[in-house]
């Protein structure tokens, strides 16, 4: 008879305590999840009860006004839209270009990994630092002033590392066997990139780009550093116009709510508009990811 190491009695005795422990940990994990949901719920309820009734066509379409009952956020909406128009092409071209170079063209070595590591590090730099960079470079050195172009480029720089890293990951996820097949038929690197690798990586790249776009349009700190006002200024109509944006509007109304109590409601209403915009962008990203994700 062989020796049995699993003592049935001992195993049975420990069984119930093991099962109880499992249930306990499940509770801990559930509570963690609940905490996040609870905070989100409180935030949403507060914002919606405060701001929902203030949202109407006039609020969305009107110019800014010191009179809370007549104030509208069309200027901020247009400003944010213009910012997106600048951020998207800049980050897509520069970000995807950088990712393609680093992943596919650059010789793998110390320099390449040094650059790649530092790009990841840049993604962690606080946004206010990018604000200072934008202020020094675009507003002052290049003398743009605090116009849309300066704001857009600053936000583009801010999210560029995120776009690069996301695009690199998307490119890396394309199986090497596909590019081998292409090279094997005499394709150049560019043909392989354009016809095989990029089409396969595009859903991943777009998902990353949209998520970083939603980060960019929610940013306030860099814009305050640039000196973006929330004043009675004309609607922007070009990249060299002064502007305000949704998060700036929220920021100023919240600060001034100590003067005019109703401003707090206007800030809440603006938050709802911004949140809807962000949810919309994130939904598009999720849709693209689910619909076009290629399984190999």
């Amino acid at each position: 008879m062989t020796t049995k190491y699993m003592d049935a009695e001992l195993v049975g005795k420990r069984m119930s305590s093991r099962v109880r422990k499992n249930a306990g940990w499940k509770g801990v994990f559930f509570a963690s999840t609940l905490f996040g949901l609870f905070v989100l719920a409180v935030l949403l309820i507060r914002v919606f009860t405060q701001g929902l009734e203030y949202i109407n066509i006039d609020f969305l379409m009107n110019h800014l006004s010191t009179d809370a009952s007549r104030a509208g956020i069309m200027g901020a909406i247009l400003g944010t839209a213009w910012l997106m128009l600048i951020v998207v092409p800049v980050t897509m071209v520069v970000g995807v270009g950088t990712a393609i170079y680093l992943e596919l063209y650059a010789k793998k070595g110390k320099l390449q990994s040094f650059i790649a590591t530092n790009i990841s590090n840049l993604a962690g730099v606080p946004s206010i630092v990018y604000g200072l960079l934008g202020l020094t470079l675009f507003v002052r050195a290049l003398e743009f002033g605090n116009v849309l172009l300066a704001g857009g480029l600053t936000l583009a720089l801010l999210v560029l590392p995120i776009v690069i890293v996301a695009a690199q990951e998307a490119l890396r996820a394309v199986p090497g066997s596909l590019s081998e097949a292409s090279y094997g038929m005499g394709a150049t690197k560019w043909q392989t990139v354009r016809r095989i690798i990029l089409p396969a990586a595009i859903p991943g790249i777009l998902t990353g780009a949209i998520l970083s776009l939603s980060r960019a349009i929610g940013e306030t700190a860099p814009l305050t550093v640039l000196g973006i006002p929330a004043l009675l200024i004309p609607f922007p109509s070009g990249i060299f116009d002064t502007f305000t944006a949704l998060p700036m509007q929220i920021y100023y109304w919240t600060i001034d709510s100590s003067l005019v109590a109703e401003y707090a409601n206007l800030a809440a209403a603006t938050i709802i508009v911004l949140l809807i915009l962000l949810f919309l962008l994130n939904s598009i990203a999720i849709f693209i990811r689910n619909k076009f994700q290629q399984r190999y």
Partner: protein
Amino acid sequence: MNTVMTKKINLQLVRNERREPAVQKEIVYDTKDLNLWYGETHALKNINMDIKEKEVTAIIGPSGCGKSTYLKTLNRMVELVPIVKTSGEITYKGRNILDKSFRVEDLRTQVGMVFQKANPFPKSIYENIAYGPRIHGINNKKILDEIVEKSLRGAFIWDELKDRLHDNAYGLSGGQQQRLCIARCLAVEPNVILMDEPTSALDPKSTLRIEELVQELKKDYAIVIVTHNMQQAARISDKTAFFLNGEIIEYDQTDHIFNTPTDERTGDYISGRFG
């Protein structure tokens, strides 16, 4: 090509042909004193062998013996590994392909490759075949249509696929995918086809179909095939090279290698005593 397409595959016929007196065949690849290093690892040592047109050359040997490396040197795919260094020369139609002035794109247009695992593009069957011609500048729909049909016929898969040309290639079975990849390779009209264990991921029936296809293709192409399958090498090749630890131990007519090997190690490997 056209006669090839319409002919029924007949292995027996192919075997008989092999016994006919050999006509003078041209040398396609002439490898002289080839050495190759992956960083510090000496992966190929003093390789000398020539590869002739209209023949199947099999390369056998245990894992890590350098046979795939040698195959990938023939179209310089080995350069995708950045730390590779070579010495010696491989002459292809009179020119040294290891010379940097020989454009890899040019070489790979003339030398097609079929990989271990079928690697169709995530595109339609039609677009998979049209890819090669397209990158070489052919965009005329009518010409592309003809190339697609000719290539699929060449790989004996036209009848199976002609009604679903615009379906995604990922919907095909593993064996069909591999034959599609062979057809894709034919579309560029190469002179040589390199095959890197093309049947290692396939079931016996699909394997047999690929082997039959190889027998047909060798009438027009030089074929170099790396295989782990000893019977396969014996069945389909005219010449066999046995690689061991980066060296060629023996390179001769397949009949000779399998029946009366000169080197003891060849005999041991073939009879399954090691590897």
